[in-house]
């Protein structure tokens, strides 16, 4: 009896391990930046290149930084959701336009709509390296003291927004008001 049970046991253990392993998304690399200060940067704005935008400007506010590009296909899928979330006014969404051409990016916003309060233009991708970006879209939630509290790799989904972003935003706003 035992000689049949042992292979069966080994098989079941392997099934469990494979189920866990295959169910995971290998593209989702845990970011070491969670709960660390958001890297500082000062970049020209996309719409008005003569003005700059810096993460420092956002001190005291809870905000979302969305990394996107006009060449990024998944960003296109994500875009209607961003429009909806921007309209809801739950949290201000800022864009980091990553390795894009200014004209392409502006045309993209004109065509699909602009959910961003404003966009920083990271044309050579140096700031994105500081943020550990390796595939757009990526979305960061940054708190009042400039600490990254959450990072979504790949497009936002309604689930992620409802279950991760919104509760955190509410919690952070409460904490901020109490301070």
């Amino acid at each position, binding site marked *: 009896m035992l000689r049949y049970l042992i292979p069966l046991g080994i098989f079941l253990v392997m099934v469990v391990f494979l189920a866990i392993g295959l169910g995971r998304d290998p593209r989702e690399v845990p970011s*070491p930046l969670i709960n660390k200060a958001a890297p500082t940067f000062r970049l020209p704005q996309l719409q008005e290149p003569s003005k700059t935008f810096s993460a420092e400007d956002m001190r005291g506010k809870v905000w979302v930084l969305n990394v996107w590009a006009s060449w990024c296909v998944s960003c296109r899928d994500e875009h209607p959701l961003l429009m909806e979330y921007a309209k809801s006014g739950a949290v201000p969404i800022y864009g980091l336009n990553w390795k894009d051409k200014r004209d392409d990016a502006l045309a993209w916003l004109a065509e699909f709509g602009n959910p961003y309060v404003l966009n920083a233009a990271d044309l*050579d*991708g140096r700031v994105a*390296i*500081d943020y*550990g970006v*390796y595939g757009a879209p990526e979305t960061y939630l940054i708190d009042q003291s400039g600490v990254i509290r959450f990072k979504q790799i790949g497009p936002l989904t309604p689930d992620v927004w409802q279950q991760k972003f919104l509760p955190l935003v509410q919690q952070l706003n409460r904490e901020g008001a109490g301070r």
Partner: protein
Amino acid sequence: MKRVRWLLPLLLVGLVAPFAVAQVKRQRPVTDDPALEQRLHKLSQNLRCLVCQNETLADSQADLAEDLRDEIREQMKAGKSDQEIISFLTARYGQFILYKPQVTPTTYLLWFGPFVLLLAGLAVLFHYIKQRRDLIPEKPLTADERRRAEEMLRADSRKETA
């Protein structure tokens, strides 16, 4: 038949040409410092490209890999050590970028797990063999059995000499 003879080489050239073109297009100007390029190559062979995760940063043609190589190149020019560059990268992309992760409590299982499994396997094997040995008790031969065994051996050696 005569016409076919030059058709084949032509076909082969036609097949290979697009790849040659693609290869040339991908080449990017690098610095003219061969020592630095070699150092970059050596370092980036131990780094993972995060876009195509089973490729090294040295081999990858992904845009991000190019950017990261440029970044490393610049840091090397600025006199940073390999160790400093590696900590720069792991601070941003995590241990995942290293093909050979550092030994820290979170990677203990990764580093020592296989040896633990090996020891467990040896223990099971040892136990199994010991059990088998206990199952087969050694009984001394009776006088009758000994006589029969000797007879068999004698018959055997006679056959061999014959």
